[in-house]
């Protein structure tokens, strides 16, 4: 993955930059020693690393504003960072950039049950938000698998989803307002505790903007009452096609499961070897979870089983207890770890129309064998959000490049069947250069126009999202 050549003039101004930052927010929040900035050299797309010039960890919105004002004046690129769990290289620094992290800003500012909202500083982790309210019977719905580590900041920037978003939506559907610092240091309030915008829906374009528009320091989130209970059913099929049809039939029936997860044979095998969840030996496996009272769960599971039986399943395992539920989820939850045991892997997240599942799985298998690489699929089937895991060997010369080429082919395939490059992980650097496969130059120009308004100097995360060639002239203005 190509990154722009660091601007030597900026690098040479490091001492002056550090002095100004320290004067503004104190020495504690400014990290410049080479061995210390190394901690910020990558996110979860760990194949790509580059230590930043400086890392800054302010402790308030005001300090964030001061830092941005200094960087803006000195023309230094800024890479916003939450917890650094991005799988797309979203928080990967460049050698001439400042990492601006919100990790020290983790306060809960207000919990409001009557209005079902919580206001937080964005450095707080996703799970801590639910932790704050669950004693009172509430939860924050978007639940990325990384929720123990990832921050609300990154969730907003990536518009993250999770296993439960089939029913509850992704971040954008659960975000009511933000405090954001613009690249020139101005602080802007957008939205609030009320619903929907009066004027243009700026919140809608800020969510998912991958740190391109401003630094989000506070957020008002919607919280929901916890369901009475939840239980899954596991259904095995002897073909991906049939499993795919079963998914469509369930969705069409009016049922709204909280999750419909899909695993294919390579993934089931790996998981069985690793976690011994006792999954059936079959081509495709669905885990479908529903919520409600005991009786409602029984009723919904019965409806699902009835639909599934029309598709000749090889196995149906309905959970009747918390223990059985845990066993059913065990394999799914260990899937990534299990694949990790087999080697290094790259995780894609292209999304496709649900009806294209069988064809896409077949094509992925064919492409994988052409490349001589193994691919396992485990994904959110209810909304067509694929997660092909490509196995490769990082120590083998050329294997990463081969893996990336296969990944690119798979993502193009997703677009070609009417889907998109990324359903929840974001573009970052990973899919940046594939953007022209999904969008025309005019389409990209329209998106870059939005960045032009928020960040005229293009100092925020400038080498991400848009193909480098497309954004070159704008970045040249630095």
């Amino acid at each position, binding site marked *: 993955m190509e990154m722009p050549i660091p601007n030597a003039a900026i690098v040479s101004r490091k001492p002056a930059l550090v002095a100004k930052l320290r004067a503004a927010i104190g020495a504690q929040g400014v990290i410049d020693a080479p061995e210390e900035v190394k901690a910020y050299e990558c996110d979860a797309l760990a194949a790509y690393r580059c230590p930043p010039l400086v890392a800054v960890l302010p402790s308030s919105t005001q300090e964030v504003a001061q830092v941005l004002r200094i960087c803006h004046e000195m023309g230094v690129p800024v890479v916003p960072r939450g917890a650094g769990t991005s799988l797309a290289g979203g928080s990967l620094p460049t050698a001439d950039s400042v990492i601006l992290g919100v990790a020290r800003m983790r306060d809960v500012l207000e919990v409001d049950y009557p209005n079902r909202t919580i206001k937080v500083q964005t450095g707080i982790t996703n799970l801590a938000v639910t932790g704050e309210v669950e004693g009172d019977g509430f939860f924050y719905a978007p639940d990325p698998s990384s929720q123990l580590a990832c921050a609300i900041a990154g969730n907003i920037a990536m518009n993250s989803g999770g296993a439960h978003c089939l029913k509850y939506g992704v971040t954008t*559907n659960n975000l009511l307002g933000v405090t954001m610092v613009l690249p020139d240091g101005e602080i802007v309030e957008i939205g609030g505790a*009320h619903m929907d915008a009066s004027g243009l*829906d700026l919140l809608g374009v800020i969510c998912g*903007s991958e740190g391109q528009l401003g630094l989000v320091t506070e957020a008002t989130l919607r919280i929901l009452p916890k369901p009475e209970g939840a239980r899954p059913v596991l259904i095995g099929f002897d073909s991906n096609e049939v499993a795919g049809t079963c998914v469509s039939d369930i969705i069409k029936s009016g049922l709204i499961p909280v999750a419909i997860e899909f695993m294919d044979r390579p993934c089931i095998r790996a998981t069985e070897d690793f976690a011994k969840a006792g999954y059936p030996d079959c081509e495709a496996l669905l885990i479908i979870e529903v919520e409600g009272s005991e009786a*409602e769960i029984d009723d919904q599971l019965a409806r699902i089983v009835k639909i599934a039986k029309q598709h000749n399943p090889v196995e149906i395992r309905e959970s009747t207890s918390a223990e059985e539920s845990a066993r059913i989820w065990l394999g799914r939850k260990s899937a990534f770890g299990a694949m990790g045991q087999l080697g290094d892997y790259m995780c894609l997240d292209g999304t496709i129309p649900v009806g294209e599942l069988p064809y896409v799985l077949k094509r992925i298998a064919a492409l994988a064998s052409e490349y001589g690489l193994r691919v396992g699929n485990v994904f959110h089937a209810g909304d067509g959000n694929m997660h092909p895991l490509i196995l490769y060997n990082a120590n083998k010369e050329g294997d990463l490049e081969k893996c990336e080429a296969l990944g690119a082919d798979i993502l193009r395939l997703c677009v070609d069947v009417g889907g998109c490059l990324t359903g929840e992980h974001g573009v970052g650097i990973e899919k940046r250069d594939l953007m022209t496969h999904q969008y025309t130059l005019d389409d990209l120009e329209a998106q870059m126009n939005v960045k032009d*308004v*928020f960040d005229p100097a293009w100092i925020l995360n400038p080498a991400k999202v848009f193909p480098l060639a497309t954004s070159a002239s704008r970045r040249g203005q630095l």
Partner: protein
Amino acid sequence: MSILAVSNTTFAQQQDHLAAQIRAGNIVVPRGHGSSQIGLAAGQELNAPDALWDFDPSALTLTVSAGTPRDTIETLLRDQGQCLAFEPPHMQGLLGQSKVGNNAGTIGGMVATNASGPRRVAVGACRDFCLGVAYVDGLGRLIKNGGRVMKNVTGLDLVKLMAGSHGTLGLITEVSLKTQPIPEMTATLTIENLNEVDAVTAMSAALGTPFSVTGAAHVRADRHGAFARTLIRIEGFESSVSYRIEALQNALERFGHSTVEWDQTANADIWRAIRDVDRFHAMTGDVWRVSVKPSDAPKLVEAVQPLDVIYDWGGGRLWLLTQPNTDVRAQMTAGHATLVRASDATKQALGVFHPENALVAKISAGLREKFDPMQKFNRGMMS
């Protein structure tokens, strides 16, 4: 399997034609049926391409040209047991327009106004169900954003920006929407005679239960002697609805006796009337649509002293009927108020849309400048 209306070539031709008109034309007012036209704008009217769609019921997705009448789409969906979950209101009654044939609004108009009804409090607004959009911008460029899949974070989300932009950023030509199966059954729990503070407290309590409330509204006593009513809606499979209604009655016991409407037609009527603000159709006065934090609603109503009020979204949405020329915004410190119905002079004087804080206004103006540098679309409507 998908249900397809007309070939894509025809649509592409229509879009190209529109783009050419915009490149050549002067000032443009993107227009559907004019059924939710609330702002003031002048210029040459340009209609979005009409009546084309590609509907895939098994994927719950619909791609439709912006000029397609809402009636057409609602029938198409109903035939497949599906609907638009966000319950978009029909505004003609409120705006005093008579219904002539198929003029009940277009899909483009619905998206451009982010039209969302009672179920919004539970499932999200129109913008939350918009998966993709195509539009012609002020330079006559045809731009696409988003797609037709449920989850999509590829690039900046211009879909949300276009939804609710009231035609000020471009002419929407096509949208992809997520649809939803029609719930098997609806029941409405009613508590009579609550004061408005208690009504909002009761609605908050209901929305805070795990029983998946999909509507929470409050209307005042009327001239015909009916008591004030607080309405809570439950939808879903029959067995589930009866269980939840009972659980909800227990949970709300402290607010007094409640009754339950089980008749399906009556339920449809109750919520359609809330959605379309039926109560104000025949009443004179200005109409404001307000978005506030629900617990702030009774205080605001107390301060404004409107002629009448409807609380929807558990109090998060207020429809206020006021004496002409009342400035509701003068009483507000948070949220926003849109002047939906008033004389042109009042709209001119008070402004239809809520004034934005200086920075937001600057950003919005910057976006309009980029999307529509020659100010061809609905000039001055929102700002």
